């Protein structure tokens, strides 16, 4: 890495770091946002589950409960983010749903997998929707099925949805930090080569630097002085040999 690389590094690292900070901040906020949305939905789901379980206490099988459609409709009406609400049997078939076409249909594999691997509340993500589910139990603690609510995935603060806002809000800050980094790089990397070039020029011209700067300057002056001696010796030898050659 030379001077240009060092300069770029000094300019780029602060910008990348500032961008990284914005990214991390955006994700922190998005996760908190999604967490609050999920908490709201899970609370709603728990409410539906509790109400359906109260109906189960009457002793009727889940499929024969009369009030479930009303409970589901009421819940969906109270939460604009919820697209649909279902009650699912243990066999994975939809028993009740605010989406009438889903009744009697098997649930998507993602839901079945999520429900099978979870002991409590579960969540299944699909391309455009996220489904929250909670088991339904009777008075004896036996599982009767699940309640599920389906929401639009966009409502759960998808990753990087805040990034654009933050970057546009902090654009000037990014430019300023890049300029500061570049300035720092210029200061750090501008001085290094000047005295080296001066030392090189003095060696090339065989003119000692007075006073010498640092070990390199001292060594350069020593080399210049030594080269003068060497040159004198070599030329003297050459003269002697030429004289001898002329004699012969």
């Amino acid at each position: 890495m030379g001077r240009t690389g060092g300069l770029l590094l000094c300019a780029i690292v602060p910008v990348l770091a500032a961008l990284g900070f914005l990214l991390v901040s955006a994700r922190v906020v998005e996760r908190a946002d999604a967490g609050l949305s999920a908490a709201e939905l899970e609370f709603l789901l728990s409410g539906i589950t509790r109400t359906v379980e109260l109906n189960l206490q009457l002793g009727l099988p889940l499929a024969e409960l009369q009030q479930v459609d009303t409970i589901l409709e009421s819940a969906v009406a109270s939460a604009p983010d919820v697209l649909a609400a279902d009650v699912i049997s243990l066999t994975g078939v939809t028993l009740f749903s605010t989406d009438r076409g889903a009744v009697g249909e098997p649930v998507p594999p993602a839901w079945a997998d999520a429900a099978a691997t979870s002991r409590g509340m579960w969540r299944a993500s699909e391309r455009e929707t996220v489904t929250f589910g909670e088991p339904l139990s009777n008075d004896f603690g036996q599982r009767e099925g699940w309640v599920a609510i389906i929401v639009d995935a966009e409502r759960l603060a998808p990753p990087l949805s805040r990034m654009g806002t933050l970057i546009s809000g902090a654009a000037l800050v990014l430019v300023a930090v890049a300029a500061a980094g570049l300035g720092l790089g210029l200061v750090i990397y501008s001085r290094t080569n000047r005295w080296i070039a001066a030392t090189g020029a003095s060696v090339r011209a065989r003119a000692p630097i007075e006073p010498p700067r640092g070990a390199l300057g001292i060594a350069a002056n020593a080399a210049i002085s030594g080269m003068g001696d060497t040159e004198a010796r070599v030329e003297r030898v050459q003269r002697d040999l030429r004289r001898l050659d002329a004699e012969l």
Partner: protein
Amino acid sequence: MQSFDPRPPVAGPRVTLRRGRYVSGSVASDRIAALAGLLTALFVGLASYVAVIVAMPPVLADLDVKSSDVAATVAQSVAADLSRAVGLGIPLGAMRGVDDYLSEILGFAPEVDGIAILDRQERLLFSSRSGDALLDRPHARAPIMAPAGGTGEGEGGTGDGEGAAIGSVIAQASSATHAGVMRAIAASAAAVALLAGILVGLAVRIVRLERVDLPTVRTAAMLHAAARGHFVIRGLTPAGVLPPVADALARAVTPIQLTYRRIQALVEEIKAVDGSAAVRQRVGDALGALEGLRLETRRGRLRHIGLVWWPAAALTVIAATRPLIANFAYDRIGNDPFAEVAVAFAVTAETIGAILGVILAALLAGRWSKPATFAAMLMAAAAYAAVYVIRDYRVFTATVTFAAFCGWFAVWSVLATEGAGRRLPWRGAIVLLGAAAAGPMIGGLLAEAEGRRAAFATLGVLAALLAVASTAGAPRLPQRRRPVPPALRLSPADVLALLAASLALFAWADVSLAGTVLRERYAEMALNFGLAGAASFVPVLLRWRLPAPAGGLVAAAAVLAGAGLVPAAAAVGVDVLQPAVSVLAGLGFGIVAFALGARAFVPSSAIAIGVGGVAAGALHAADMVQPGAGLALAAIAATALAGLAVLAAVTHALGWAR
């Protein structure tokens, strides 16, 4: 380090270079690197602060609105339940078990701080906490409606018909989410600023070490040789910023070399014309003046071992997993009573994998270095990426152990090569302390940004890129295995000090903070790791050449005090002790590393550090019996080890030990 002309020098002016100033310990370079790092950290910290002021308010306001929505949903739900109860004929003010019901609701909705139920005249009927406190703060409100067909008369209603409000439910949104977000953002800003400062500082130091300091020494040596009539070292001059001087010297010397060649040609001609003894004698006398000059000698070979960036980068990626391992293992079995054992198992096994990797690299030292480095790094990359899909803690432990084995083997297959550890003390500081400081911050910030699994996957991708880069950065020359020189062997005091410092630091940061105290709070983890890492550079920068046992004592005492004081201070709302302990633990480790110099950079040091990590992980199993016992035991053990290190050092100094 390159090998210079092996022949003995001839007499001539000699100037001794002050190694402390011009080799890896250049004070000027230290200061420039530290200044660059500090200013970068300042720029980034300031930029982050301004970004929070300028860009965050609308985002945080949205979050507050969402919190209020949650509170409103809870209030509506409670109001609906109460309406149904009223519909069954129970007067609102005479309901029983409402307090338990509210507690149950708050259990379901931790995002709500408190709920209160008011009658129509706004009189407080029930409350989960102080009703006045709830009413005085912003809250969401939902009316309790009289049931259909009811009048609400008995509830203070006006009897003006169906659906009249007979009271209201108010719910106060918890400020925990907002506070948590602000805490994470502040920790992220500080960690990012620290990381940027460390990266720029290290990069500047690497550049100055490889391009300025070492070439300056070599060029100065070359100039001194030229002063004595030796013009042969040009071929050994490394790349860097010094070639202008070397080129100038070569140009200045060229006329002399040409004259010398003409002399040689002339000598041959004279000998060809008259080979008599007398002429030979005169020629010999004339050439006697050239004795000691070396004007035409073959150029030496520069031993290229690769810049320090590759092992530093590879170790940084490996160290990035440090904040992730303990809490990932914990979460695989959640609140199972054996969760602490799972954490201990994962940390211990992973560190053992690293130790085995170092041992294998030391045994192979250089043989098949390039293919072995590439293959091992690639396997580590695959293992890290595989964590993305792992669900079981045993599989996770096996995977990270394998990754640590491969990764550390790859790194040490480069570091164990000849010459890698001779540039003191900065080479060791850059690789060892730099990776230990920057890596965990990168890992923590990645986890905060994209989640733990995705962070492992990202690190896998980075490791794969480094595997490819190793073909350029790993040593190219076949290396031979050589015994560790006596000067680089660790004394018992050194080993004990390393063990004490690493045990204390691992127990504090990798196990206690990452696995228990700051679980899931990755930005704060990153900050604590970063503070420890930045503090470890202080002795190097300030030239605190204290004895190694002193560093062990500092780290152990800090963690011992932290084990007792931090939880107590946190209980009364004092949060500064935790970062203070991280700083002191890192400082102690830095003192040990600087005291050891090159010896901190040999395989046995890496193994000693690893053993400290193994002990820290294993002792954490004691948390299963009593929470916090693992850290306390580790701190006590580290203090004992540091005491033994002091004893060993004193014994050695007094000449009692042989």
